[in-house]
């Protein structure tokens, strides 16, 4: 959920943009992190872990912990918590290690 009123902070949000998550259309704000947009929309599971396929969600928020590795525009292992949202992005839950892009 988004914090609409805060006693100390004013959130400068980018313009509203649409993107897809696992094929579903979601609205977020341009420039915010992909995870912020997803969590705001109530999406908590971002990936399934590499061996046991356990659900993983937002965790470290600084691109270190691997919990938010997602498939974005066909590219695996994108750190969604530090990647800014762009209009029309195709974001998908990553299951396991993901595909290695062919060179």
């Amino acid at each position: 959920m988004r914090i609409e009123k805060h006693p100390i902070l004013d959130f400068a949000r980018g313009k509203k943009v649409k993107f897809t998550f696992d094929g579903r259309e979601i609205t977020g704000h341009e420039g915010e992190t992909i995870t912020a947009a997803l969590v705001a929309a109530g999406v908590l599971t971002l990936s399934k872990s590499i061996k046991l396929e356990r659900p993983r969600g937002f965790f470290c928020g600084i691109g270190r912990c691997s919990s938010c590795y997602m498939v974005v525009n066909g590219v695996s292992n994108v750190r969604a918590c530090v990647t800014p949202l762009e209009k029309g992005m195709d974001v998908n839950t990553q299951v396991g290690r993901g595909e290695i892009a062919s060179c």
Partner: protein
Amino acid sequence: MLETDVLIIGGGPAGMCAAIEAAKLGVKTTVVEDKDRLGGQLVKQTHQFFGSEKHHAGVRGIDIGVKLAGECSDLKVNALTNTTCTGIFDDGSVGCLRGEEFFLIHPKRIVIATGAYENMLPFPDCDLPGVYGAGGLQTLMNVDGVLPGKTYLMVGAGNIGLIVSYQLMQAGAEVVAIVEALDRVGGYEVHAAKVKRMGVPIFLRHTVTHVSGDGKVERATISKIDGSFKPVPGSEFTVSVDAVCLAVGLSPLIELIAQAGCETRYIPECAGHVAVHDSNMRTSLEHIFVAGDASGIEEASAAMVEGRIAGLHAALDVTHGKADSNELLREFDSQLDELRTGPFGQKARQGKSKLWGLKLPPDEEFEEAPPIIPESGKKPVIECPQNIPCNPCAVSCPTESITIGDNITNFPVLDQGTCNGCGNCVAACPGLAVFLVNRDYSDREAEITIPWELTPPPEKGDKGYALDRTGVAICPATVTKIRRVKKIDKKRLLVAFTVPLDKADEARHFVIVEPKGAEKIETLPPADDIIICRCEDVTQKEILDCFNSGYKSFDEIKRYLRTGMGPCQGKTCQRLILGILARELKTHVSELAPQTVRTPMKPTELEIYASSKEIEPWDFENWQPPGGGH
């Protein structure tokens, strides 16, 4: 190759201050920061800092971050954001990764100010979505303005746990409880008082034993623990929550320090392995300095002063001591001494004494001060029971009725005779620990003025309840006045409400709807194993099996199970695995070797190295700050 005189790795409070002091001496200064802006943890600190004016007392962390970043910019510091330092090499060069671009920087001196990482607490299903580190949650909440749920359990009553609990409530969330494994609150009592009077219970000697839910946290089970931190059977209870927030300590981030070859030592008072450094912040390698949490966990105020010392010494090396900075250095040393006095500076004093080979200072006993309660008139009640280094109440007082004295950790003293009851101290106290009590409001009523930083604020005429210091509704209350003292703080409100005269010394918070405590729900059995390494999906059982097969060190287990080889490079699991090893080997973590650290600090595709190129050299002379401000 990019050349610079002083390279600072990490653009948080320590790094920015190091850059400022180095740049002031006129040396070419570069900061490498892996986030998109300078500021480090300051970018999400909505609370006002303690200390004196020198330490930005009374200023909110976010504003300190912007101010320091501005100073860096004004001093033409080359700030390379979105850039990660991947290694420090034997020829003195430093590898940096920016996006898909790899390049080398060749500095004359390096200051490592990489900060800290959050400790993890292992329990069944601790990897479920809904278990968050306090720092991560704070980023989501205060930078992005997004909350991942409505109800929270906070684990840890140190300053971070207490502050983030309050910030969760500022953001509109509900904190069901705070659990703390120790038998006392570790953070400042004023931070605990803020959440307690809003009705958040703090369970001491309790911890979270497991969480459960369908694909995400839905319930958390809490248990009492005994003297050896083992759950007491039969004491567990379960609450319904959306999230569990872990604030169970920080560890110094010393990957680069260890990889560069600086000598490290385990110092418990510094919260882990740290670089051996002298009081000039120089490590065992002459060209490398350290500052801030990477040199031992402390408050940001101390990190900033350490940064200044490290930056100045690094720059003096480059100028071969041409500038006379002795007076400045003495000033920084005395500021650090000031911040490290009192009960909360004790750990840092002891940790640094060990590092510097000084005789350990004796453990001092500190007594808590009772609140100063004036008996008549409209006067402040100062509920500041501990010797914390802080003086904004005295600085804000127009009649000089509040005094602290020379030692900043002294308790404030109120001269009731000269105090005019203006309430500036209520607006100024960073701990929100000063209240204005007017016993002469009417024959039967007293008026209480409280500091207010919550949404939505009440309005004049609102009727509700006064809560006491433990969050219990004790009497009806009516709001009489809402105001701000803008010259002191633009955001904080002062809310005045009336209560029956005999409740004047108890009423400390106002609510419209009486708070209800958390309901206890059915406890479900815990999952039978615990994820220790999130990146590689390695469980506690696997690690124990591995240990029992003869793998007795972190590096051995790492080679066998890949723990520490994933994207986080052991930041989550190393401490946990060393803990398991220490327990099984019946020794202490200080006796165990941490993992061998090698470059790169974060997984990097080989293609990126292969295509590394020179980057545009920085024109230190003709640089102009970008037009869009900082």
